[in-house]
Each structure stands twice: as C-alpha cells, then as structure tokens.
C-alpha cells in the first residue's frame, strides 16, 4: 500500500491545480459560514447592547413581528403606566421609551443617512451615555458622535430634523456614545415631552424599560409585573427583546447564506469536473504502471484505494487551504454586499468549528466522488493490455455515454419544459432541477461533438497561425473526452453568467415596458437614497406636494409586513380611488381595486386558489399593531405590475400599521401644467425635504435598471469564481497533457519547431477548449435564459431580451481567457530541453 502511495506522491505537483480548484470552491463555502456567523454574532452583540441598563421591558403584546425593522410597530403604551410600573416592588426604576423617525439634515440640506438605515429619534432615558454636552432639554437634540463627526457638526450647532409629520430646528446640546445599536444607525435624542410631540405619540410611550432592584432576577420581576398587567400589555426580559431583535435581523438576511451556498455549490460542481478530469488523465498516464502493479499481484481494491487515497489527500489539502482562505472571502463578500447597498455590521470574524467541518467534508467528498469513476477505471486496466498498448482502460463505450447523457438531458429537458409550460406554482424549482439534468446530460454528450466542434472552432486559428494552430487543434481533437470535460466546466460557468446577463436585460426591459405601458402618473416620488428605502416617504412630504397648485392628484402606495399562519408576508396599500388612474392594469384587476374598501383585501388569483379562498371569505391577517384581523376577500387580481400577492386600502393600513411611510407616491399634474413647470413646482414644495426623489418616466426606468445593475455586479462576481476554476481546469489539463506528450514536444522541437510556434500550438489548443466551453455556455445561456424568463412571467418578467453584444463579448472573453490559461503550460513546454524531452521514457 505504501508503495502504491509513493507512486501517487510522485504526482503531487501535478495535483496542485486540482487542489487549487478544490480550495477555491471551499473558500466560498467557508467564507459564507464565516460571514453569516460574523453577522449573526454582530446582530446579537448589538441587540444585547441596545437594552442598556434595563432588565425587563413592558410593551404592547403583538402576534407578529416584522423583519429588520428599527421603527416601532406595536400599539403604544399609555404614559400613565410608567408610574404604576415604577411602584411595583422590586422595580428600581422604570422610564419611558419613545422612538420614531427623525432624519437629520446636514448644513448643505442633505439627509445624513447612515449605513443605509433610517435615523431613529428617541426620548432621553436614564441610561444614555453622553460623551460631551448634557442631556437635551426643550429645543435641544443630542446626536451620536459618529454622525456629528461625519457631518462636521459640533455642540451648539443648529440642525434641522425631519419627522414624519413636520420639520423642526434644534440646537445640538449633547453628543452620544455611538456604540450599541443593532445597525449602528444615526441617532437623535430629545427630552421626553419633545420626543412624544415630534414623534406623534403624545401621552403615550412605545415601551417601558424597567431596572430591577438588586437581588431581583429579571425573570422574577417579569412574572411579577405580568401578574398585574392588563392583557394587552406584556413584560419580557430585555434579554428576550435582544434575542428577538437579533433574530429578526438575522432572518432578514437569511437569504444570504442560502444564495451564497448556491454559488459555492456551482463552484464545487465545476471543481468536480476538473477533479474528475485530472484523475482520468493521471490514471490514463499511469496505465502502464498500474498494469504492472496488477500483473505483480496488486488487487483491484488496492488500486482503487490508491487512487482514492490520492483523492482524499488532494481534497484535504485543498479544503484546508480553502477553509483558511474563507476569512479573506468573508471580508470580500462583506465589501461586495456593501456595494450592493447592504451595509452589514462589521465585527471581528467569527470562526466556528462547524465552518471547518463543513468546508473540509464538502471539499473531500466532492473530490472523492469526482475521482470515483477514474479510480474504477484504473482497476479495469487489464494487466497485459496496458503493458502492451498505449491507452489502458479507455473503453467507456460511446453508446453507454450516449444513452446516459441523453437520458439525463431528456429528463432534465422534460422537467424544465414542464416548469415553463405548465405555469404552475413553483416553476422555478422545476426549471432549476431541469437545468441541472440538462447540464449533466450535456457534459456527458459533449465528447461526442468535441472533435467536430474543435475542428470547426480551430479553423480560423489554423488560417491565422498556420501549422502550430493546426497541431494544437489536432491535440484538442485527439482526446475528445478530455477536451470536452475541460470545456464542460467552462460551459457551466459561462452559461450561468450568460443566464444572469439575459435575466438582467429581460428584467430591465420588462420594467421599462411596464412603465411605458402602465404608468400614467406624471411623476413618481420615492425615498431618496437607501435610508428611505427602509422607511419611505414621510406623510408630511406628501401633504406639501398635495397642496401645490400644479398638482391634480396624489396617490400613495405603502408597503408592510404581516403574518399569515406564523409566516411573514408582504402587502401593498393603495388608494382605490386614485391608484388605477396612475397605474393602468388589466380591466379585471382594476375593477377589483376600485371595489376594495377598508374592510377588505385583494389577493392574487393563484394565491387565493391555493388557499381555497373565495370572494367574501375572511382572510386572517396578523398585524404587529392590531393583532389578527379578518379581512374580507373582496376580489382577486392577476396583473404582474403589482409586486405582491396582497393589496389593502390606505385606510386599512392606517388602522393596522404604526408607521405611515409611502414606498411610492404617484403624482398627476393639473391640466395645462407642463412637465418642466410641474417638476419645478414639486421640487419647490419639497425644498425642505431632501429625503424624496422626484422622477419622471425615464428616471423611473433608470432607477429600476440601477437596482438590477447593483445586483448584477456581485452575482456575476460570484459566478466568476466558477469561471476562474474552469480556466484553472484548462491550464491544468494542458499541463498534464504536455507532461504526457513530453516526447512529442521534444520531437517537434528537434524537427525545427520554434519555441514561439510551440507556445502558439499550446495556446491554440487552450483557445479551442475555451472556445468550445464558450460556445456550449452560450447555447446553454440562451436556452436557460429563455426558460428562466418564461418561468418568471408571474413575477413580472414579461420581456425576453438576449443582450447579443454582451453574450458575444462574454464568449469572446471566455475564449481569450481560455487561451491565456494556456500561457503557463505553453511556457513550461517551451522551456523543456529538447534532447531530454525526446529521450524521456513517456
């Protein structure tokens, strides 16, 4: 066994490329875990800090909690309760907590948005720590030092603050410690009376934090308080509030690890191709040696084991390197998401043992699985056959490959088409599964077309570069399976990048189409910057616009979260009287909207069908503020212009939601007012409110495109990892092939091939493999792009656009990159000493 392993060790250097492929894929796995664990711990840490010195918190009960919300969403608590709580034995202190939207405006009139989150204004509490100045009195505000530093504000400066109902000016009286907020948003603190007034909760508070006397445990105090509290209020420990808050934020980013692991899975799949290929080549190269071992009495099991041991070793080395590289990846991902607009809390990296375990297990498992077939092939080498002939055990029959490949491909195709054509509930799942089947099928079938395809793709090279390219092409064609599986790895990467490009172009076109076809408003007001995206356009702004004489109609659209059977759902709230004039939708949906009143809800037809709801049925909707309400199903809609499944009226929204911000405000100008005049008027009305953006149709389209682009960059970057692994595969395959063909290289050089020509030959082979991968990838992208877009019709992706120039550029880039991947192996080949090469025994 050790003797067998020694043969394996000799290949060590040649396995470097494989280990690198494993390492890259595992890096993403490990990076994902480190990232999510770090975020998780940061959320928990910050949430725990938020509680301050309190032990228990009294608040309104709620059956539902929205995700990632930093503004109060529960029914307020009467202020009179504070004194009653303070009187309960065991309570050392109880105070009022008031929170709400308070956007700070800097000296230039711009909103000071921190980390893309809304500014939270609150009432001063006994446990607030000031770093400078004093606790705010009337007309004063205390802001956090970090914000002050960024905006260049000092004690005594005047600052304008935007509330949901008004704008007011304050003097900065104190500076707060910046630490201790879940999302480190900008903070503004007022005295209690002011806070209640400006935040619109006079006589009320959002919660009552309570500090326990020494010797009284939070749990005991909580029970004691709960015993005397009316039903609609509850006492919970601060620890529990922190836990809830952390969980709500973690859930809000729960899609992240899933999405990232998906990319990691793609990278591992591509890696598997490289691994399988490498081991196939190594086994073929060692056919003679393995046959010799067989004839000397080594058993099949021993040979398989020797190859698999090698796989385990490579997998281990690669995985460990990958797990460690995960630290860097986590940091990179953080930056990547920062670019997308998700500022995630920064904290020192958290490394759990689980990260190492999953990373190593995944890396080793993929390596071993990918090496299984080549290992089995090693044992099929007949002792005599391989000693005599050149290629041992190469006889995987074409017909079996054809059968298996076609079976997988057709099954995948059938699944995918069912998904696309049935228009069922979850077409994306079917399309995804089908895509995997088709990819596997294609990979299995590629060797059958590799020879003619390489011939075709190499033609222009041969015309350009002559004999060296001709020889390179012959090399690419001589082992179609090797060429094919190397190209197939690239096919997957390029295919997915292409699909994303098609999807992005289609989504943009669909958005533009929707605006052209259905937007009837002259202007659309949306929250400016990302800060507002979490809260929205404050009501005060809308009132100002409504008062403008240039404006005929203003229609608000609000968005919110609610619970159905314990699951988070979204809804939109509209004004039934005006919204259909702003957005033209199909007649049936429009009629349903116009019939909607404050007691009712509209549900997407497919969703209503799934739940078996009929017109007139009650839909149990749970709100954070008001609890479960039975809203009457007053109609269904089918339009994809509405990006949610549930629609209620603004009236119902006002009754059931604590915050009243709008996602979108549609404005129709008065007759006779030109667009230029209208914009000027609206902007004048908004002069004091830097948080709102006024957009005409083309700006709405541009904003949508911008949103798509922001997603496109990181997604493409993540897929690029798979492409890089595939390119590594090309370099690896070529290096192995050259090693195998050392003698041929020597012969060519002896016959007068110049080094330059030799390099050109190898680069040609690389370019052909790259071109094959690019070609297959483009075909895959076109087909999957079509399937994906077709299956996303219900999500409003109605247009199918092939960004031809982009796809062609991608294919060209992949081919060139493939050629570049050949540079190192080419250089290595050119550096071989001619005589030594020709007299090598291989």
């Amino acid at each position, binding site marked *: 066994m050790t003797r067998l392993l020694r043969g394996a060790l000799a290949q060590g250097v040649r396995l470097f490329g494989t280990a690198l492929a494993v390492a890259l894929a595992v890096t993403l796995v490990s990076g994902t875990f480190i990232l999510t664990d770090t975020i998780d711990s940061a959320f928990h840490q910050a949430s725990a800090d938020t509680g301050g010195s309190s032990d228990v918190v009294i608040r309104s009960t709620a059956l539902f909690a929205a995700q990632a919300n930093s503004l109060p969403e529960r029914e307020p608590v009467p202020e009179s309760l504070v004194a009653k709580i303070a009187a309960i034995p065991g309570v050392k202190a109880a105070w009022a907590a008031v929170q709400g939207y308070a956007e700070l405006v800097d000296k230039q009139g711009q909103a000071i948005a921190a980390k893309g989150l809304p500014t939270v204004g609150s009432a001063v509490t006994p446990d607030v720590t000031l770093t400078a100045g004093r606790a705010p009195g009337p007309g004063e505000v205390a802001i956090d030092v970090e914000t002050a530093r960024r905006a260049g504000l000092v004690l005594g400066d005047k600052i304008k603050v935007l509330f949901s109902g008004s704008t007011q000016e304050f003097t900065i009286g104190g500076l707060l410690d910046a630490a201790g907020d879940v999302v480190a948003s900008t903070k503004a603190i007022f005295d209690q009376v002011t806070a209640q007034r400006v935040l619109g909760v006079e006589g009320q508070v959002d919660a009552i934090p309570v500090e326990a006397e020494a010797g009284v445990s939070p749990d005991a105090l909580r029970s004691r308080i709960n015993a005397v509290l009316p039903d609609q209020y509850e006492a919970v420990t601060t620890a529990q509030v922190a836990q809830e808050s952390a969980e709500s934020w973690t859930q809000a980013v729960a899609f992240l690890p899933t999405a990232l692991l998906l990319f990691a899975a793609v990278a591992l799949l591509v890696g598997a191709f490289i691994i399988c290929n490498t081991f196939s080549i190594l086994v073929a190269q060692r056919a003679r040696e393995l046959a010799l071992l067989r004839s000397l009495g080594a058993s099949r099991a021993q040979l398989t084991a020797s190859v698999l041991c090698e796989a385990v070793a490579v997998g281990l080395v690669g995985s460990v390197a990958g797990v460690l590289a995960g630290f860097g990846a986590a940091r990179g991902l953080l930056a990547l998401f920062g670019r997308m607009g998700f500022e995630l809390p920064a904290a020192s990296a958290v490394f759990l043992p689980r990260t190492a375990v999953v990373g190593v297990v995944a890396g080793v498992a993929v390596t071993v699985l990918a090496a299984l077939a080549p290992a089995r092939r090693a044992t099929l080498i007949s002792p005599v056959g391989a000693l005599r002939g*050149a290629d041992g055990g190469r006889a995987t029959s074409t017909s079996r490959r054809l059968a298996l490949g076609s079976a997988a491909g057709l099954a995948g195709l059938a699944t995918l088409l069912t998904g696309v054509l049935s228009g069922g509930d979850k077409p994306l799942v079917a399309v995804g599964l089908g895509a995997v089947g088709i990819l596997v099928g294609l990979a299995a079938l590629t060797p059958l077309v590799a020879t003619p395809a390489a011939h075709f793709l190499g033609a222009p090279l041969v015309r350009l570069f*002559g*004999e*060296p390219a*001709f*020889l390179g092409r*012959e*090399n690419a*064609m*001589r082992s179609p399976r090797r060429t094919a599986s190397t190209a197939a790895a690239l096919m997957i990467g390029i295919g997915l990048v292409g699909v994303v490009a098609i999807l992005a172009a289609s989504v943009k076109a669909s958005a533009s189409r929707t605006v052209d076809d259905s937007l009837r408003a002259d202007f659309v007001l949306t929250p400016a910057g990302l800060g507002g995206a979490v809260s929205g356009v404050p009501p005060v702004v809308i009132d100002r616009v409504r008062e403008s004489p240039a404006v005929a109609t203003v229609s608000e659209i609000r968005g919110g979260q609610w619970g159905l059977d314990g699951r988070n759902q979204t809804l939109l709230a509209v004004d039934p009287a005006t919204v259909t004039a702003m957005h033209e939708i199909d007649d049936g949906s429009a009629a349903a909207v116009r019939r909607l009143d404050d007691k009712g809800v509209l549900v997407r037809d497919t969703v209503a069908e799934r739940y078996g709801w009929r017109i007139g049925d009650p839909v149990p909707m749970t709100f954070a503020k008001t609890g479960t309400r039975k809203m009457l199903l007053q109609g269904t809609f089918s339009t994809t212009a509405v990006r949610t499944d549930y629609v209620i009226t603004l009236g119902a929204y006002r009754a059931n939601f604590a915050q009243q911000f709008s996602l979108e405000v549609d404005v129709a100008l008065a007759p006779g007012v030109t667009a230029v005049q209208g914009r000027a008027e609206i902007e004048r009305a908004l002069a004091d409110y830097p948080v709102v953006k006024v957009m005409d149709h083309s700006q709405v389209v541009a904003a949508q495109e911008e949103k798509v682009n922001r997603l496109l960059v990181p997604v493409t970057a993540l897929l690029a990892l798979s492409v890089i692994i595939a390119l590594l595969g090309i370099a690896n395959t070529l290096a192995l092939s050259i090693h195998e063909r050392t*003698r*041929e290289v020597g*012969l*060519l*050089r*002896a*016959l*007068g*091939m*110049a*080094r330059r*020509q030799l390099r050109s030959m190898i680069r040609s082979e690389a370019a052909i493999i790259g071109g094959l991968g690019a070609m297959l990838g483009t075909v895959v992208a076109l087909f999957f792009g079509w399937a994906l877009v077709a299956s996303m019709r219900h999500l409003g992706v109605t247009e199918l656009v092939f960004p031809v120039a982009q796809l062609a550029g991608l294919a060209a880039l992949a081919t060139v990159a493939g050629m570049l991947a050949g540079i190192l192996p080419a250089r290595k080949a050119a550096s071989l000493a*001619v*005589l030594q090469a*020709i007299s090598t025994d291989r």
Partner: protein
Amino acid sequence: MTLILRAPTTHEDRTFPHLVTSVPAARAVNAVKLYGNAETSVRALDGVNVDFAPGCFTAIMGPSGSGKSTLLHCLAGLDDLTSGSISIGDTILGTLRERQLTRLRRDRIGFIFQAFNLLPTLTAAENITLPLALAGRRPDPDWFDTVVDVVGLRDRLHHRPAELSGGQQQRVAAARALVSRPEIILADEPTGNLDSKAGGELLAFMRRAVDGFGQTIVMVTHDPVAASYADRIVFLADGQVVDEMFEPTAERAIDHMKQLGG
C-alpha cells in the same frame, strides 16, 4: 544547397564524392563534449575530427557509449559542444543562437530517430510535410510524389502512425527527412527496432536517396549489414574517431568491430 556534381551511381560502382568537392556537408573539429560535473564528468566526445562529404552515405559505428549519438546530436544542433566546433556546410553551429539553430534543424537537416519519429495525431502525409509546414512552405508536389513513391507509402499516406508497422513508420520518417531536401540527413540507429527485412527496405531506400538524388546521409548503426550499405564507415571509440573504412562490406565491418572490442 551544395551543388552535386556527381552522376548517380549504383551500389557496386562507387566513386568517392568526398574527393570530388571541397566543402564538406558537415564537419567536426576537435569536438569535445563533457557530461556531468567535474568529479563525475564523462567525456562523451574527446576531440573528434571528422568531415562528411556531400552526396556520401556515411555510417558511424562503435561500441555502446562511444559517443555516436552524442556526435549526431551535436551535428544536428540538438546539443552543444564543450569545446571545438561543428559546421553544417559553411555555417558554424557554435555561433548560432537558439532560434537560428531551430531554423537550421528545420530547413537544412533531416533527422531520423531510432523510434518515436512521428506525431501520433498526424497522418503519414502530414508527418512527412511537418518541417515544411512549420517553415510555412508547401512541398514541391513532384518531389513529394517522387519521395512517396520511392518509400512505397502511396497507399498509406492517410493512415496515422498507430495504423502503420514499425518499418512503415521509419520509412515515413525517412520520407520526412528527405522531402525538405535538407543538406544532410542524420539518422540514429534508424533500423534498430526493425527486423532484417524492414531494415533492408529502409536502407535500400536511403541508398537510393544518395545515389538518385545526391542526398548526404550520416547514419549511426550497430549493425554491420546496415553499415555495409554506406560508402564509408567512421569508427568511434571512447569519444574519438579511431578509424574509417571505405566501400565497406558486412564482413569487413564485423572484423573491424571485433578489433575495437565492440
């Protein structure tokens, strides 16, 4: 290319072309080749002086390890001397840079190895024209046809090496060496892997190339019968030229080798 002033001759009726023209096709002067470092150094060539006349078929014989292959490699510019000089025609190889050496090999030298002469991916025809293709030249079709017919490969032109016998493969290599009309063909035991019949065919072909087209050939061989096809045998021992023989026969060659202790 050196002008050939000689009428074709038969095996029986030979003249000695090296006496006719003055510039040798190849020449080694005080050629020394050391291998290894100071302590373990091997003197593969130890002051070889030899001329190879144009249009002459020379065989090199000598005991194993006497430096025959080394001499041939140095003549072909595949290896460089430690001291002394080698020239092909009037080009001194030591002065050439790597790129010029490569071009020299491609354009002015034909090489036939003992085995593994052909690229497995190319057909016989493609292998034959490979050096020309590398030079970006097209073969002269008449000359190509002549060469192909002489080696008797017409019906094998589109086969790949794996589909050819060892003898046929060596004939393809010989055709390749000939088709670019090199100044000199260097062959290192070209018949070493062949049985006597296939070997005989190849040697007859080489003989014909010399007699018919005035080709210069230098061939290393262990086989006295093979050497008897040559016009002249140069004997090497311990890296030095120890003797030569004109108009050799197999018997005389055997005797001579015995004297050398090979």
